[in-house]
């Protein structure tokens, strides 16, 4: 399976990687147990920073789409198909969207909401 990224679009590279891996899992191109390339190999092939690929892998692992088996490598998770349906980014956007609407309705300005959001993020 070939993966393609575009560094000229606003969507971050790690997000493009995540959506393509999830898309391939949902379409059946990547099946449970399929071995994925190492972070180094993929980053060098795509000519992107290793940390970018590492971040994508970390988030995919958090979502249980992939799993790391020690030094043996990274594989597609047995429950990857069902876990790929859950879009955590969309879920976060939905929750934040409704919160922002509520705050705006209560009379807060956008800059006040931003300051409050930054403060909360720093505290937690």
């Amino acid at each position: 399976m070939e993966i393609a990224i575009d560094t000229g679009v606003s969507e971050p590279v790690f997000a493009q990687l995540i959506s393509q891996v999830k898309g391939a899992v949902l379409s059946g191109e990547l099946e449970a147990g399929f071995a994925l390339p190492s972070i180094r190999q993929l980053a060098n092939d795509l000519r992107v920073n290793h940390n970018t690929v590492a971040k994508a892998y970390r988030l995919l692992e958090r979502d249980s789409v992939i799993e790391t088996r020690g030094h043996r490598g990274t594989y597609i998770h047995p429950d990857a198909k069902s876990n790929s349906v859950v879009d955590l980014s969309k879920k976060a956007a939905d929750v934040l969207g409704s919160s922002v609407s509520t705050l705006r309705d209560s009379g807060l300005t956008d800059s006040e909401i931003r300051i409050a959001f930054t403060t909360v993020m720093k505290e937690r």
Partner: protein
Amino acid sequence: MPDSLIPDNLPVFLIFLSQILVVSVYLPLRRYKLRWEIFETHPVSEYPRYYPQTIEFERRRLTIGRNLPLFIALVGLGFFCLAWVSNYSQVTMTRVVLLFCMVQIVPVAMWEIWDAQRAHQMRAKDQSTTRKAELRVRHLSDFVSPLSITVAIVMYVFATFAMGYIYLNDLWSSDVRWKLPALLFVNALMVLGFGGLGVFHKLYGKRIDPYMANLDRMQRIAKGIKILAYMSIVYSFFILVLLSMQTFDLVLELNAIVTSIFYQAILAYGVLHAGEKRDFEVYREAVH
């Protein structure tokens, strides 16, 4: 003056002549022809990505790449004639053959450096924002059979063990005898060390040519790894043959012959497989 026109070490002379003709005449001309054909059939106007420099610059390099080995061949033929007339001894001829290997490698190394520079310039000029990669693990065994890898390792370990055994049991009376096997052993160590690094870089390192199609890239990786694996096997075999010959006081004439054949075969493999079909469509200008 020698009594006969035929020198005493005729096989070494013949292998030296073959080395001159193969490495400094046939292979450079073949490489020149292949490159020239690529330039002719893939013009700059249609494949601009393939030419990070001007076509005049590329052709100038091509001409140097052809003429330098031919000059070396002329020098080699001069040496050959001198050695023939003077009936050089076996030891001297062995030295000449081995030293000439080093001279002949210069244009080959020059080509490698030029290709690396070219790829670097391609990467610098690459403005495209899209990049592709195969989402597949690459293993050494995808490119060379596990049997070859096993044989290479076993032969190397065996050669090391044999050298250690001879040294520890003091089977050779003279220290002079150690010179060539020791040199070869260090060479083999370097081949394995640098070869190992090269293999690692090929498998997991950065893309050299930013445009090259994935299939072509895999073929290149396979070629490089195969050369290294076979080179390691032959080198270990050569060390073992040498050790046996010296242990049993056999004729050392084979040293130069085996080295030269090995050298010619490795270089020929590299050049003769360079003309494989590859996808040049990737070097066309991207349409936005």
